[in-house]
């Protein structure tokens, strides 16, 4: 690289922050070697960084207050929260649309199966459009407040 390439203010800061390619880093060091005032100014920026870290790094070790820990928790997506609420209503009210009519554990059930109550995250559950409970569940889902 050309050592005579003009050194910019931006490069001097990049030198402070270690964001220069190694070769240019050394060229800037040589440039500063004969400019003690500039070197002093840039060293003070390095000291400034160290002082800022010293002042604020202790925050990293603080226990998280509830009001920031809670919003950071994983949440299930909104459509599963509503679907879960709708399912709870449908199952409790014995909605026939889910194929529960005539279901007896063990005995021949003509293929009728009880669907899993827990929705698998990767699948959508199709809701048959017949029973009152199902319509109530959909109404509940539509009018659920945002969480």
């Amino acid at each position, binding site marked *: 690289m050309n050592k005579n390439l003009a050194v910019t*203010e*931006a490069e001097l*800061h*990049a030198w402070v*922050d270690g*964001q220069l390619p190694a070769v240019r880093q050394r060229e800037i060091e040589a440039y500063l070697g004969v400019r003690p005032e500039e070197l002093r*100014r840039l060293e*003070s*920026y390095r000291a*400034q*960084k160290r*002082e*800022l*870290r010293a*002042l*604020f*790094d202790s*925050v*990293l070790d*603080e226990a*998280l*207050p509830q*009001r*920031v*820990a809670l*919003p*950071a*928790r*994983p*949440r299930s*997506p909104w459509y599963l929260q509503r679907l879960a609420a709708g399912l709870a209503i449908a199952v409790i009210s014995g909605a026939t649309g889910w194929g529960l009519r005539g279901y007896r554990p063990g005995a021949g059930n003509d293929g009728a199966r009880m669907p899993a109550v827990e929705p698998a995250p990767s699948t959508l559950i199709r809701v048959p459009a017949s029973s009152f409970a199902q319509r109530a569940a959909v109404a509940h889902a539509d009018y659920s407040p945002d969480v």
Partner: protein
Amino acid sequence: MSHNQDLLTWVPRLRRYARALAGNRDDADDKVQDTLERAWVKSSLWHGVADMRAWLFSIMHNLHVDGRRRPKLHTVTVDDDTPEVPVAPTQGERLAVLDLQAALDLLPSEQKAIVLMVALEDMAYADVARALGIPIGTVMSRLSRGRERLRCLMEAREQPVRLTVVRNTP
């Protein structure tokens, strides 16, 4: 679900940055709480976010700019177009040396944000530019001004070095 985990991962660093911006614990945690809630509103975008840190820091920055929370102190906006003024009072009196938090609070908000992102997070300039939605050249000029202003405040100089000077008439 890795993005969900990422949110909790970044909370301590968001708190550190917010503490430096706000100067006190309550206002700082206000910012973090607002930032996390806003991040959830935009959760449909997470799968497309390459750099979660820059994205979260940019939300925090934009919330501050939008003034979602009314500032508790009356503030005057100072930006790059504000002429540089000497920090020393007239009559030749020297400024008392400020502590670092007080000096930080005297920086224009864009300069302060950039100085802190680089000092606390070692953020690459391209990431700072992305977080703030400004060109890298603007990042560099504000970084330079911010650092120099902070240095002058801490060293109680009468005026910044090598920047546009507004001279006191004696």
